[in-house]
């Protein structure tokens, strides 16, 4: 009999003599009986006609084929991002223009009302500006990305990706369903961490939890998209710019996948040693997605929901940043003091103190990293009217950004600590501070090392 504490359960003490030793055989007999009944019932109640041409099998034959399986995955990823970037470009500009026009109106309202400068500063330059950037930068790409992703999800493509990728995860000593949890992570890492519950083996579940942050979540997508567009996109003719930008973002995502596999491999050979457990995955039939539903749903439920959450966090963060940037100790602002303290580290990582500060302040939500960087630069003296992407580009260039800086920021966006919500979820799911700490340190150390290498490497070959 099993080692269950029998003192605690008196009924077992009484029944022990009755329970036979061959539990496993009994289990088999029970399941077999149930299945026999199920079969008998189905013979009565279910009639199968001649099945129509199996389109599923044909589609599977292509999507999981030996030669086309992987290229199609890559192509779809690139296509989704390309559509997102191309489609988001114009609405983003429009939104930025509109929101900053509104800012001017609000400003003159404040003037007319005779509001004190500090109030104007906190509310307009702090809160409103941050919100405007969050909305202009996040809304359009999300409104395009979510429906596209949901389309693939409802079609039934995700399990096929897991089927294709499983061998890599198996070699890394991880579970094939980790791939599904990563897909959830592309939406939100906190949701991705919770979805790791579908993995039976605690060891493999923990690996999936610890590496989920390497899936770029929607809080980080916009940062990547904006930076890729204004730095890499600008390197080529306008006609190809969004294509190049999409490829750069694909590159970052792929880096994330490679890092996930590599860290999973390391973990399953060190801290979380073990052999791959059992893997079963159902590949459901493809189902025709309902386009209208998908668009409404992903706009209303997901895009606006995520945006709402970002706004709630961005508003106080904007106020805080403004206050830090405008409270002076001596003749230097607190913000500048803090950032200049971080500056040396930032510089060797190819970035600067303001960027690192933005990542730190962005702990509650990655969405606000870029707005804080912008605010940091603007409060540092620049009197720019920031109403378009090209203005943003000028602002960043003015502060010494090169495309190496952009690459380092993108890499650090991929590889730094998970956001606050995700860390909290990791703690809830693992119930251990040490795993939560590891989930924080692992990507952070990796991020510091990577950006350091990239920056120093670029310096060496004089790019």
């Amino acid at each position, binding site marked *: 009999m099993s080692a269950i504490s029998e003192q605690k359960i008196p009924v077992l003490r009484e029944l022990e003599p009755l*329970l036979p030793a061959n539990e496993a055989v009994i289990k088999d007999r029970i399941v077999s009986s149930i299945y026999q009944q199920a079969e008998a019932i189905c013979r009565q109640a279910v009639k199968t006609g001649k099945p129509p041409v199996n389109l599923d099998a044909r589609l599977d034959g292509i999507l999981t084929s030996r030669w086309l399986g992987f290229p199609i995955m890559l192509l779809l990823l690139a296509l989704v991002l390309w559509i997102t970037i191309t489609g988001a470009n114009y609405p983003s500009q429009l939104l930025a223009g509109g929101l900053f026009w509104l800012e001017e109106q609000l400003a003159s309202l404040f003037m007319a009302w005779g509001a004190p400068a500090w109030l104007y500063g906190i509310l307009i330059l702090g809160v409103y500006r941050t919100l405007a950037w969050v909305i202009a930068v996040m809304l359009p790409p999300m409104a395009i990305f979510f429906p596209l992703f949901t389309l693939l999800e409802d079609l039934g493509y*995700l399990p096929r990706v897991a089927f294709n990728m499983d061998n890599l995860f198996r070699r890394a000593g991880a579970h094939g369903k980790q791939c599904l949890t990563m897909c959830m992570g592309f939406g939100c890492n906190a949701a991705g961490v919770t979805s790791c519950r*579908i993995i039976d083996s605690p060891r493999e579940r923990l690996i999936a939890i610890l590496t989920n942050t390497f899936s770029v979540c929607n809080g980080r997508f916009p940062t990547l998209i904006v930076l890729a567009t204004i730095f890499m996109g600008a390197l080529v003719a306008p006609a190809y710019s969004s294509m190049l930008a999409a490829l750069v973002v694909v590159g970052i995502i792929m880096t994330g996948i490679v890092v996930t596999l590599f860290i999973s491999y390391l973990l399953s050979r060190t801290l979380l040693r073990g052999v791959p457990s059992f893997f079963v995955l159902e590949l459901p039939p493809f189902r025709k997605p309902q386009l209208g539903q998908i668009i409404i749903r992903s706009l209303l439920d997901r895009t606006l929901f995520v945006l709402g959450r970002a706004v709630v966090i961005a508003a106080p963060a904007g106020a805080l940043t403004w206050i830090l940037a405008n409270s002076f100790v001596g003749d230097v602002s607190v913000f500048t003091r803090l950032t200049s303290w971080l500056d040396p580290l930032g510089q060797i990582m190819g970035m600067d103190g303001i960027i690192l500060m933005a990542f730190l302040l962005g702990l509650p939500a990655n969405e606000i990293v870029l707005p804080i960087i912008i605010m940091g630069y603007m409060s540092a003296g620049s009197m720019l009217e920031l109403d378009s992407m090209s203005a943003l580009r000028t602002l960043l260039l003015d502060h010494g950004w090169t495309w190496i800086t952009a690459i380092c920021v993108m890499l650090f966006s991929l590889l730094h600590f998970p956001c606050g919500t995700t860390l909290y979820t990791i703690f809830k799911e693992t119930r251990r501070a040490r795993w939560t700490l590891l989930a924080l340190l692992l990507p952070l150390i990796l991020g510091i090392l990577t950006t350091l290498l990239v920056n120093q490497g670029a310096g060496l070959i004089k790019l």
Partner: protein
Amino acid sequence: MTVNCHIVSTEPGKDNPTVRNHFIIALAGNPNVGKSTVFNRLTGMKQHTGNWPGKTVIKAEGTFYHRNRRYTLVDLPGTYSLHAGSADEQVARDFICFSRPDITLVVSDATCLERNLNLVLQVLEITSQVVLCVNLMDEAKRKRIQVDTEKLAQELGIPVVGTAARSGQGLNRLKNVLGDMVDGKIVTSPRCVVYDQELESLVQQIEPRLAIYMPNWVNRRWVALRLLEGEFNLLNHIPHNALMDYPRGEIKEDGALCLL
């Protein structure tokens, strides 16, 4: 062979028929059969759905009103059986087995009913208050699979409703059936799997001895079978004394990693 087993009734009206106006319905079923879609349709809520098994991993509650009754519907993660493996399946198993919902609404996939019936028959071993919703009828039709819901109801001894939840087809009927069930207008006589003689005689010896160790609502035949299978862990989920008890629908949400 069809036998109407004696099932300890979890009949809803029992607690206090005149006052009870609020009922708890658990949504059970294999993964990816449309449980969350049914849930959204009935409650008007927006649980995420997606065409892959494992989309829902934590339970969600929603309410709807029908014929002046209030229902709390509990959307659960999908599970292939009541022998939970992963954490999401545990959440489902715990709710179905130990929270005593007034009705367990099992959603199943019309295109592969046989495998789905594995779970249905297991649920029928726990409670008699079960309604079967055969979902994805539109898909089945497309694949030329005909499910005779009346025949199925006869065979299983419980109400069966065919639906296509995504387009809302059959859901009004489903609500009416749920209403009739809580009103006591539908009396079920669930089909019970009868095992081989040796097993059945063991069950008969064990069952009566369980009485003093657990409250009356616990289905002792089911517990006896699980003990024979060596699933002693389930004893941790039920009170160890006939007089101890906890309220309906209450079960602590869990699913955190416990081993490491």
